[in-house]
């Protein structure tokens, strides 16, 4: 009985603390993976250039993971993502190379094509009640075919600098010695914001008599986040400054984080994923939610299509192969549930970066690509197993 009592007090102490370790456990895992590879690669993955390439390499995965999270929240996935990304890039590339269309218009075309794919899926899924697995399996096949048709099985390129800027460009810099000051100023502003927002939320909670997290925990959490931000931006400052792609990613993540946590629309997605019948009897138009989730996934595919073709400076028919799996894996590694209703945008982003750091680290360490796949699969399985088994013990 003695140990049982101990367990009980430990459990109740955890409840009071209110800062869930589960939520931040993945972030700690991310840091751990990074540190482990720092040892394996003898510090190569800490270099300024490599920190920069981590962003450049993972931009599209992050964007897709965010969109995929919404699908996963409804208890489904979108298998067509990779093919749609390729088709969108193909449209933009062909318009520029073959028809001389200007960059903004080509980018818009990519977004429109993506959105059309999304609307197509959304129509079948919501109006006709066809399981998303089937519909997106179809778009996966059709999208790839369309991509080959558009490109006539060839690679279209090179794309102009104005187009590739979005994935390869940097914000203006002001170098003092080797370090870009603009990047550092942004970093400091971010750190201040992290602390300010937390203090503000504590103050308002107190004012309304709502439970608050103990101050030392908030500070510890903010300090860790700030350290990460400062490290990260310092490395960028030592290289070429802030990549344009980083801003784009941040914007996407912020917008969707806001939608999922603060808006009625976000609540509706969670409610529908948790219990569709109860949601619909609570006045939520579940068909509409379904439609928009998939239409939105299409739009983000359009965006990822631009990012990917800009990074490669060309549109190739094989582009985006297997992206859907990376995006889905990111969501699950980030704590989303296959049954729907559970998961966060931040979790999905962390999941994407865990995959990205693994890829990057293994390449730097000279792992065989086949071995890399085995490791990635094992990490996905391990992460989800740990997550589910630890939950089961609590219950």
């Amino acid at each position, binding site marked *: 009985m003695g140990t*049982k009592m101990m367990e009980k007090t430990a459990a109740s102490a955890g409840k009071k603390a209110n800062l869930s370790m589960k939520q931040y456990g993945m972030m700690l895992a991310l840091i751990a993976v990074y540190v482990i590879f720092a040892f394996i690669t003898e510090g190569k993955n800490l270099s300024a250039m490599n920190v920069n390439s981590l962003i450049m390499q993972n931009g599209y995965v992050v964007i897709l993971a965010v969109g995929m999270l919404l699908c996963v929240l409804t208890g489904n996935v979108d298998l067509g993502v990779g093919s749609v990304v390729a088709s969108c890039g193909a449209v933009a590339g062909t318009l520029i190379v073959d028809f001389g269309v200007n960059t903004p218009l080509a980018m818009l075309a990519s977004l429109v094509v993506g959105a059309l794919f999304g609307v197509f899926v959304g129509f079948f899924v919501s109006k006709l009640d066809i399981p998303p697995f089937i519909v997106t399996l179809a778009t996966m096949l059709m999208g790839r075919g369309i991509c080959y048709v558009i490109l006539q099985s060839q690679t279209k390129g090179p794309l102009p600098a104005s187009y590739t800027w979005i994935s390869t460009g940097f914000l203006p810099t002001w170098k003092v010695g080797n370090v870009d000051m603009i990047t550092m100023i942004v970093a400091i502003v971010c750190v201040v914001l992290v602390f300010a927002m937390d203090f503000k939320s504590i103050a308002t*909670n107190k004012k309304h008599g709502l439970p608050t997290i103990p101050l030392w925990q908030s500070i510890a959490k903010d300090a860790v986040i700030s350290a990460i931000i400062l490290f990260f931006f310092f490395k960028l400052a030592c290289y070429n400054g802030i990549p344009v792609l980083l801003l784009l990613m941040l914007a996407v993540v912020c917008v969707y984080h806001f939608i999922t946590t603060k808006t009625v629309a*976000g*609540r509706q997605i969670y*409610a529908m994923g*948790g219990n569709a019948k*109860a949601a619909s*009897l609570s006045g939520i138009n579940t068909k509409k939610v379904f439609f928009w989730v998939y239409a939105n996934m299409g739009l983000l595919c359009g965006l990822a299509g631009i990012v990917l073709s800009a990074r490669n400076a060309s549109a190739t028919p094989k582009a985006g192969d297997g992206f859907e799996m990376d995006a889905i894996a990111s969501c699950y590694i980030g704590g989303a549930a296959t049954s729907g*209703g559970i998961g966060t945008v931040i979790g999905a982003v962390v999941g994407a970066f865990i995959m990205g750091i693994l890829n990057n680290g293994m390449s730097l360490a000279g792992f065989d690509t086949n071995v890399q796949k085995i490791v990635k699969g094992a990490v996905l399985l391990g992460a989800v197993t740990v997550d589910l088994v630890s939950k089961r013990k609590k219950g």
Partner: protein
Amino acid sequence: MAQEYILEMNHIVKAFSGVRALDDVDFKVRRGEIMAICGENGAGKSTLMNVLSGVYPYGSYEGDIVYCGETCRFHSIKDSEQKGIVIIHQELALSPYLSVAENVFIGNERQKNGVIDWTRTRREAQELLARVGLENENVNVPVNTLGVGKQQMIEIAKALGKKADLLILDEPTAALNDTESAQLLELMLQLKAQGMTCIIISHKLNEISYVADSITIIRDGKSIETLHKGVDEFSEDRIIKGMVGRELTNRYPKREDCPIGEAIFEVKNWNVYHPDDADRQVLKDINLTVRAGEVVGLAGLMGAGRTELAMSLFGHAYGQKISGEVYIKGKKVDMRSVRSAIDNNFAYVSEDRKTYGLVLIDSITFNMSLAALRRFFSERGVVDERKEAVKAEEYRRLINVKTATMEQPVGSLSGGNQQKVVLAKWMLTQPDVLILDEPTRGIDVGAKYEIYSVINDLARAGKAIIIISSEMPEIIGTCDRTYVINEGEIAGELSRDEMTQEAIMGTIMAHNRKGE
């Protein structure tokens, strides 16, 4: 009492992460009797049965189980079934698309070297069905084509096929209507006459006092007392006293200072057709009126069309080809979606809270605000989390939801507290009209009382309230007036003075005769 005990459970202690769900429980059953276990939700009834049947294996609890004079150590359900202890859970364990015969012998197949002997399977299934009063049933049809009542009987046939000596029924009549329940109880008595020992867990006390020979009462994980028929008083009030630990003189709180005002909810000539069959009319020419501050019942047998009526009114959530008019506060309203119903201050507290009422994985706050989120807790699509948290906390206190934090997933609450959360969810939409569908199903006596009190408060606030209930005493105890619905029509209307169980049943019977 010189009779032999078939089962003795002594000093059973079972703890879940330090909390004692069973605390030194003694439980003895005599051979050939029907023993009932009574207790509020969470008292430990199901836990006790799970210990007995090996769901919680030997070693995970303290105390010992003596069955037929032999100390038993069950490691799984298989072990206890081998000894003849068979448990039938509340949720039926039938595979819907398999045939009746296959279901009867599921996990217990009539086979030779792994190959199923179909002739034997069908013949023996037929014999077992005859024992439970289903001799005319075709054993080759899929189980899902039969009603819940018959499915429950098939579960019992399945248990008989396992050569059960001790049959445990957990809430066997929860999903059955009155006729089906009566049949099931008769079957239990019949099996008893054949020498079977039964343990029944049920919230329906009238059934228990009818069928049981002994009643063991469990409260807060402790065995309180065992009553024997013919020795102790066996009335419902006596059982309730044991369950709640105090006299509950009135199960239905009085509604005082509640003047009844003008009619604020009117339905005229409401017709609804079945959603999958456009030719089948489910509701015919329904007319009803509810006044402010009035509580009106919808009585009737299961399948009479009460839930269908409520859901078709609630934004056409059920049915097709719907016609008729609805007036709220004298204004004609057209509610074609759940959203528009909510916007017209109309609320439907659905039956079966776990399936239709709650998102079990999400928090209490999340669930409470769900229906009102758009109208009252958001501005331009952005949720006002402070306002939401403050209001949810206010309602938690108001209707007394017992919980450690508001962040707790609703799924971890007891049935009574879950029902309170559903009620709060709809109260937060600030409705003028509320339909409560089976608002107290499967919750304990104490929580029921609290729910009735909330209903009284709502009536006092001038709302029009409709209660759908299959428990006639509940309708009689809580309503000012009731409509009796039968086969999709209003069979009659009874005022407070006319309302008795006999009158309600009489109205249904008379309507049936008229239909013939």
